[in-house]
């Protein structure tokens, strides 16, 4: 990815030569611009300038090329704008969050649950294989066809046809990765909340009320004390992390191609030390203030992430939309009627279909993950409400916990109004977006399919004897 010039080099290192990093980012865009301008100015090496390319083919190819240029240029400009310090900041914040999560899960004795939780479902791997296959197929098809047409110069037209879409998808992949990290943290927090919830159910016995009075106070003290222990704990945790690194990781390797080595550590959470004894007095509600802060921190982390990647979503979604509509249009109005007559025309229509499919898959994954992250964050508030309703023992001691939880849920209400994954506010990145785009696409398609292509096709000599057939298909 760094080679394609979408991310500054050494993104994890705060200090490194700035010029070197950003210069590397410029290589690919400059190459692309040379190819793009070269094709459009010298009028060679481009599909539209071949004799075999008829007017439909030329139009659609031009559209594809210019749309790609629009996509690529906006994305590159936005990623140049996005500085390295985003990555640095993301990582540091993530580390902070992870440290607190580890501390909390230690208190909550969650390690046993954790062991099972790391495994990813079959659908997760299936998705990755599927996406990889789609991309390989798309790239393979494009290069093959271009190689047949242009021979060894195929690289130049490839740069303007498929490459921008590939680059856009990679950026979206990065977005997907970051969102999945965030979503993962939300899940972990939810587990911790759930643990408190379960304990609340167990400890609801009225007999123990007297004990709890003192216990509640103890815990309250502990709650304030834990925050002070943070610094000391961090050191311990760092040691622990090192120890774990040396251990062979027996977890499922859930890493995708974008994951860094740091990410691998984060996902390993099983403390198999066995040193921690099952102490019934050790309670996890001491975690609550930390968890609330964590939730807040993760949400602000997602605000940063969204600010970085949201703007890049907009051109990508727009390109996906246009390519899909024209893909369907060309497929039904041109390819369905005159397929096999002209190889170049077929190539262009298939290119549309393939890339519309690929971009749609990526867009869908983005939407799904954003929706998931949103749901996870919502779930925390739900769990907290549940805890509040059960009136567990530790709440009886004083109002503090009640007020704390109330404050948290209220804050979440504010967050809900303030933030949602979105593309610069134009649309929310969740399933409603799919609905709105599909309905828009339908209305556009209805209008577009009214276009009368037959006369054009006939004038290009693609359609002679099947006039009657086409008439039948035109007037349903």
């Amino acid at each position, binding site marked *: 990815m760094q080679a394609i010039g979408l991310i500054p080099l050494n993104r994890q290192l705060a200090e490194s030569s700035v010029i070197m990093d950003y210069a590397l980012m410029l290589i690919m865009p400059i190459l692309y611009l040379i190819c793009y301008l070269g094709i459009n100015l010298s009028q060679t090496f481009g599909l539209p300038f071949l004799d075999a390319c008829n007017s439909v083919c030329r139009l659609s190819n031009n559209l594809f090329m210019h749309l790609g240029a629009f996509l690529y240029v906006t994305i590159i400009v936005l990623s140049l704008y996005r500085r390295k310090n985003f990555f640095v900041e993301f990582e540091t914040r993530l580390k902070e969050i992870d440290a607190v999560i580890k501390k909390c899960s230690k208190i909550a004795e969650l390690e046993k649950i954790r062991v099972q939780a790391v495994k990813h479902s079959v659908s997760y791997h299936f998705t990755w294989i599927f996406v990889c296959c789609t991309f390989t197929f798309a790239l393979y098809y494009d290069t093959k066809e271009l190689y047949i047409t242009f021979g060894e110069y195929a690289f130049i037209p490839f740069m303007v046809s498929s490459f921008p879409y590939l680059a856009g998808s990679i950026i979206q992949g990065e977005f997907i990765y970051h969102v999945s990290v965030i979503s993962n943290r939300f899940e972990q927090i939810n587990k911790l909340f759930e643990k408190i919830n379960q304990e609340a159910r167990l400890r609801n016995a009225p007999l123990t009320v007297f004990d709890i009075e003192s216990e509640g106070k103890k815990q309250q003290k502990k709650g304030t004390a834990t925050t002070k222990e943070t*610094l000391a704990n961090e050191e311990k945790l760092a040691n622990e992390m090192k120890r774990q690194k040396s251990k062979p990781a027996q977890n499922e390797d859930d890493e995708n191609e974008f994951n860094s080595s740091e990410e691998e550590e984060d996902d390993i959470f099983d403390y198999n030390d066995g040193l921690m004894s099952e102490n019934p007095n050790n309670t996890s509600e001491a975690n609550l203030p930390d968890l609330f802060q964590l939730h807040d921190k993760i949400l602000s982390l997602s605000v940063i992430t969204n600010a970085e990647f949201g703007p890049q979503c907009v051109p990508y979604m727009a390109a996906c939309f246009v390519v899909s509509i024209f893909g369907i249009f060309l497929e039904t109005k041109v390819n369905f009627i005159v397929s096999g007559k002209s190889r170049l025309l077929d190539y262009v229509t298939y290119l549309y279909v393939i890339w519309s499919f690929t971009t749609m898959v990526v867009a869908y994954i983005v939407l799904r993950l954003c929706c998931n992250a949103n749901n996870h964050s919502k779930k925390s508030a739900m769990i907290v409400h549940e805890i509040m309703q059960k009136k567990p023992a530790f709440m009886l001691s004083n109002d503090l916990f009640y007020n*704390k939880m*109330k404050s948290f849920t209220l804050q979440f*209400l504010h967050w809900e109004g303030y933030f949602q994954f979105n593309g610069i506010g*134009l649309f929310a990145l969740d399933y409603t977006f799919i609905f709105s785009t599909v309905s828009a696409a339908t209305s556009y398609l209805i*209008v577009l399919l009214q276009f009368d292509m037959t006369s054009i096709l006939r004038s290009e000599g693609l359609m002679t004897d099947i006039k009657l057939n086409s008439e039948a298909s035109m007037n349903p």
Partner: protein
Amino acid sequence: MSQPRQLVQPLLQQFQELFVISKLVGVLPQDLEQLRQKHALEKSRNGMFYMLGVLVFYVLLYNLLIFWFGAEDTSLKASQSTLTFVIGLFLTYIGLIMMVTDQLTGLLNQGQLGELYERIRQVDERLYLEQCLVDNSSISKRIRVMIALTFIFEISILVSTYIKLVDYTQVLSLLWILTAIPTFINTMDKIWFAASLYALKERFEAINATLEDLVAEHERYRDWLYKAENKFSDETEPPQYDSNLEYLYKELSGMDRASAGKNKVAPIAHSLNSFGESVQEPRKLQRANTNRMINLAPESELSNAAKVEVKLNNLCQVHDEVCEIGKAMNGLWSYPILALMAYGFLIFTAQLYFLYCATQGQIIPSLFRTAKNPVITAIFLMYTSGKCIYLIYLSWKTSLTSKRTGISLHKCGVVADDNAVYEIVNHLSLKLLNHAMDFSACGFFTLDMETLYGVSGGITSYLIILIQFNLAAQQAKEAIQSFSSFNETAGLVGAATEIDNVSSTLYSLVTTMMTPISLT
């Protein structure tokens, strides 16, 4: 200075250049002298008459313009492209309507506008007492940039159109200059709105920053406590001076530390009125500074529930007041904004449609001649859409910033982790939740980015439909022409459009509907 006890620089001070221009072209009727002296917008009878005169003058001139250039449109009527003609007819007056709305609203609201800025000033004072100053100087920079951009766009569109597309051999073609007036006046009016909105956004940001600073300060305090528990260190605690010496100490050595400290209280030194209030200022500054000094030896306000209650309460009240101001402002500008959005939507669609018509070699209405040149069209569209999008974006951002306050408030609660503070925070948070501020155009639609998304979708679909109809009409016309060569009666219909307009439109409608079948 007529008002001796001004704690803060009034916002209107930044608006002076803008006001002079608006006064001159007749956007606002208020008194110029009052603004210069008292920094307040006051009603002015003379200004009202001047503005009414200007308004009537513009309307008359614009009608003259339409009359003069409308004479060229006879060929358009004859050419039978009904759709283009009707769109042109509808949109002839939209610019004028927009301008008249702006000016009439300006006239009607002349008293309330002054009150609005007075309220903003009061808010500033209250914020100042809470030790957060809002820096207004960036607003005047923004206003200047916006005015400069307006001039660049207007002049480039006007000059390029005049040179390229208007027949400037005739003297009356100078009337074309008038086409710039409605958009210019409208832009001036919207710059007022945008700048005031930006000012509100800054107020919200200042409130948020104060809250965040409270949190950061408390965290520092906690760290300090934590350290102090481990070992007592002298470094973190600055030497204690009495309050007068503290100021000196700060001046001499503690500048950096103090600026890194509590609130980012920007020194008020840049204000012009510090000359007149030299006795007043330093005392205030000192008060703020002593507070900072005390805070430097980490003593968080959040650890004191009573103090924090007052502070948070005040901040929330200020937030409420800013929200109310925002609502009032939205009310004042609701009709102009609605007019602008309608104008933006219609003009954007029409311009693109006419651009398409021009590329197809069809005749377009003479008032939309900018569409004949793609570059001028691009500049024009950028100007129009930039105006609309900036307003929408700013409203959206302001509304988001106001929502952010609740989150920052809760951060205070979480970091203090104290029962009393939690109770205060919860109470205030509910209050804040009910103060949702959303900008809307007369309540028809909210001014946020989602509306923009919907509008852009609308423009595209209308454009596609318009182009479709245009294509169909062209094909119908061709069909008529080929038909008339065979049939004399059909030729009569084609030629006698002026007499038989209704029947010909009917005829073209029928052919339009039949084209998909008949032409395949």
